[in-house]
């Protein structure tokens, strides 16, 4: 018999030889995953003995002893998106995404519930709840909530070391003061084994049962460290928030015009005759307190039969009519930045369009822009 690279220790009774045994490392298909040997597996041990009596070799086997591997219940719940979900006031079916991993050494169902209990220290400023909260499992594993497709409300038959994506879907109320809503997914390990039937939540075996019975042992950790989840309860949780980043603001624009001068009367009681200078005043107001409006663009087309007066765009704090702006900034017609302010203005001679841009219009404030034309 040839044995590659192996110096064997020979018959029992010979002096032990220091040997170099080389076993081929195989990628064993039977090796269990991180969750370990499957629950219900029977592990059996039998020893062999050899001996000699009066020079005659004999052998004997021991009894076979076995035990059944019990169910080590563990799970991991994590968020499955990089940041909170940004939503708008009144948005329907806003989605947060989570991932539930089965670390149990067996196939399990998972009962899913959502909680909006405010979590101290986790989501500062949690001041509203989403409505119509639903929990769905990603059925086609594309990681995206597909209404009408992802309809399962519990995780069905998730194998050991496998994971599933779970969505919480909720409607953001139409309340302007809303800012942030924390939401928590709670997953509870339940009995597997029946496809398309939600298993009952597992409970740990209390009594010392027979060796032949698959006991349930909870081995999950405290997933939040906040006291809401505890170790060894068969539950895991993870939290995200709906964050209001888009709001409707009550923007209003008022436009007035005034004749500044005419070639006949000059500045005194001018009339709208050819050659007269007319000033238009656009005032934009943000009527929503506390909510700034970003990138407000005021545009106006210079009327027919008039000519835009270059360099006449002025942007600033509204004045009392007939004054359009107080200490306004004179804009550059080419749209370049203006010293001392973030406002910009511009005139497009092709489109005959006047533009004034206000990067931030704070809630409850107004900004005015004026420009002048000459009547042809």
């Amino acid at each position: 018999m040839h044995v590659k690279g192996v110096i064997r220790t020979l018959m029992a009774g010979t002096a032990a030889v220091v040997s170099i045994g080389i076993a081929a490392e195989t990628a064993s298909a039977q090796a269990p995953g991180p969750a370990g040997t499957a629950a219900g597996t029977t592990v059996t041990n039998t020893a062999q003995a050899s001996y000699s009596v009066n020079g005659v070799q004999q052998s004997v086997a021991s009894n076979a002893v076995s035990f059944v591997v019990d169910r080590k219940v563990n799970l991991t719940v994590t968020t499955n998106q990089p940041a909170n979900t940004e939503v708008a006031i009144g948005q329907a079916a806003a989605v947060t995404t989570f991932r539930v991993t089965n670390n149990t050494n067996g196939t399990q169902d998972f009962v899913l519930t959502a909680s909006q209990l405010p979590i101290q220290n986790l989501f500062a400023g949690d001041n509203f709840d989403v409505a119509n909260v639903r929990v769905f499992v990603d059925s086609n594993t594309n990681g995206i909530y597909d209404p009408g497709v992802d309809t399962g409300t519990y995780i069905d038959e998730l194998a050991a070391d496998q994971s599933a994506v779970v969505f919480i879907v909720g409607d953001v109320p139409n309340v302007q003061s809303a800012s942030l809503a924390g939401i928590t997914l709670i997953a509870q390990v339940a009995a597997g084994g029946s496809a398309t039937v939600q298993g009952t939540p597992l409970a740990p075996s209390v009594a010392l049962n027979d060796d032949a019975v698959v006991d349930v042992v909870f081995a999950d950790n405290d997933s939040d460290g906040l006291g809401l989840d505890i170790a060894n309860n068969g539950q895991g949780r993870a939290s995200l928030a709906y964050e209001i980043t888009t709001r409707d603001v009550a923007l209003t624009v008022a436009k007035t015009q005034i004749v500044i001068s005419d070639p006949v009367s000059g500045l005194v009681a001018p009339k709208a005759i050819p050659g007269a200078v007319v000033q238009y005043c656009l005032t934009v107001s943000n009527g929503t307190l506390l909510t700034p409006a970003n990138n407000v663009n005021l545009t106006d087309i210079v009327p027919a039969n008039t000519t835009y007066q270059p360099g006449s765009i002025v942007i600033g704090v509204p004045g009392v009519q007939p004054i359009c702006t107080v200490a306004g900034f004179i804009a550059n017609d080419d749209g370049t930045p203006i010293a001392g302010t973030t406002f910009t203005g511009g005139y497009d001679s092709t489109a005959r369009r006047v533009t004034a841009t206000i990067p931030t219009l704070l809630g409850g404030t107004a900004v005015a822009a004026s420009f002048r034309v000459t009547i042809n």
Partner: protein
Amino acid sequence: MITRPMIAAVLAATAAVASAAAGPLQVTSSILVESRTAAADGTTRIALVKPSKVTPGDKVIFVLSYRNTGAQPLANVVLDNPLPRQIAYRSANPGSPAPDVSVDGKTFGSLATLRVRSLDGSTRAAGPNDVTSVRWRLASPLAAGSQGQFAFQAVLK
């Protein structure tokens, strides 16, 4: 390299049929787990109990008890325990002589002398997880009526 056939195995094949059940050497295998209980004095008592609850990662203790029930001494006693494949060897149990171990079921020695060939052809030192079989040999004949036991610790994969 040519090695001599295992005479023991050949002989056993003929002799064991008749004597396996009623042979003079009785070997009893048992599996135990540690049960930790808090004692009144604040210490933790570790008792070995039946493996009622064993989950992956748990320590399991295998005990082999042997006894010469015959009238004659038994020579060259070797106890060989191939590990169940769900079991990863750790060490000899405290109080038990250390077994020779094997990573291929053929070559036995101390773990430090064994190597494992990787998939890419290179070899590396064997670790406890590579052990597939453990073996003890009695240095002196087992007198009639005498007994003993070996034990090793392992974990459930």
